[in-house]
């Protein structure tokens, strides 16, 4: 069954035990994104540090396992990396999600986010996976 490939153990782990969840101070930018078709929403804050580093990505929201796990993975990947590095991961993740299951994921770039590859086969769920990542991209632009 295809859904089994979507609900990877790693995704379920992040859903049950989200990393870095909760809104924290201080921050440089805060955004609120919603997915009007399903009502999923996220509030996300970015705190920039020295040398173009992302000091913290904090977030709160509600939604399905895919959207919540994606936010948790995003937090892990982005925190501590540079703005530039993290945005290239966002781009690769977006390419994977919008690839209708035909795109080969670059595991070196994506790390744990590669577990979401199966989601790309479900067009209705792609927006769930991308919600927090698009919010992050928006927040980074606003914090610059």
């Amino acid at each position, binding site marked *: 069954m295809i859904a089994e490939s979507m609900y990877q153990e790693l995704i*379920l782990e992040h859903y*049950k035990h989200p990393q870095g969840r909760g809104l924290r101070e201080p921050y440089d930018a805060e955004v609120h994104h919603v997915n009007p078709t*399903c*009502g999923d929403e996220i509030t996300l804050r970015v705190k920039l540090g020295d040398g173009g580093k992302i000091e913290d990505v904090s977030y709160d929201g509600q939604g399905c*396992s*895919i959207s919540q796990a994606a936010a948790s993975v995003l937090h892990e990947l982005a925190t501590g990396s540079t703005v530039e590095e993290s945005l290239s991961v966002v781009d690769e993740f977006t390419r994977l999600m919008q690839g209708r299951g035909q795109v080969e994921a670059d595991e070196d770039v994506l790390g744990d986010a590669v577990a979401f590859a199966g989601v790309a086969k479900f067009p209705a769920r792609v927006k769930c996976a991308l919600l927090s990542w698009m919010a992050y991209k928006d927040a980074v632009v606003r914090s610059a």
Partner: protein
Amino acid sequence: MSAVFDVERVRKDFPVLSRELSGGRPLVYLDSGNSSQKPTQVIETMRDHFAMHYSNVGRAHHALGTESTDAYEAARDKVAAFVGAPSRDEIIFTKNASEALNLVAYSFGNRTNDDPRFTLGPGDEIVISEMEHHSNIVPWQMLVQRTGATLKWFGVTDEGRLDLADGVITERTKIVSVAHQSNVLGTVNPVAEVARRAHEVGALVLLDASQSVPHHPVDLAALGADLVAFTGHKMLGPSGIGVLWGRTELLEAMPPFLGGGEMIEAVWMDRSTYAPVPHKFEAGTPPIVEAIGLGAAVDYLNGVGMQAIEEHERALTAYALEALGEVPTLRIIGPKGLDGRGGTLSFTMEGIHPHDVGQILDDQFGVAVRVGHHCARPLHLRFGIPATTRASFYLYNTTGEIDALVKGLHHVQKVFA
């Protein structure tokens, strides 16, 4: 009266129910509150009309024009009889229930119309409820934005009943528009009581009957509402056809909604006079074959018998309420007993988002349910939840399908345990 109800025989009339989904999953369709499946009789009636009788209606004066017009108008007769409309001319075909509700909303505050029942401005009030579908909320929000009137609403109790608090309907109320049956809670609202209160202050009553007409015997004349909207695709008919019923005198007092062909009596370059109802409200080429398909759906429902359908769904609902009650952490949003409710069951499961529930039910068990806010976001906000999973039943569903749902829900819990 109909013969003894036999669900297996009914199912044979619905071709889609015998198909397999990929991976050999049987289809378990529990989403009829969203849109119903279609019997062969409807599909064949529409195919035959397209193939052998099709032309425009009303304005085509040839053999096919006569056949199409006769079939289209016969559909109006059938629908009128089905819902107990006192006159066939009180049945207006629209494209869906939303259009029917918008038609009524646009009748208010129209400066070309001075009938006091339809004037609307600052200080006037419109009353809806917190359990409405967006189609019975947004048109009224748009109306108050146009006119400066005030929108008020009945709340919903924790049990999912309409909270008929005093003071919502006042001397300033011009119209009360509520659902006959909630598309989320399944609650059947006390229309007679709402109508009594509204009529006491001279307000009109509009009923969104999209979720009731398909499932219960409905007698419009006895309901007490002034206007009733419903839709074809939820009652075995095609999409693209809806109905507005209103008392003749009221429809005559309402201004036209859309202007165009066939809704006129005479047209000059600077003015027009309008056709009598129902044609006044049917501008342009209507959904001809869709209306005829709805007529065939009505024939089919009559053949099975609405009383028998109501009883079958009631038995399914009783079975489902008990079966779902045994699923750990499952919480029904809406009445937990059989009284005053229809065959629509919405629920949450602790720690598991409805989208995940629906995905696994569909993908592994072929169970089609609806997940999300079901176009009733304010109602979900009322219960402090973003979304629910909804199973909705119709005449072709079986207790075996409810077993499949319950089995699927147990598996969902295993995945997210």
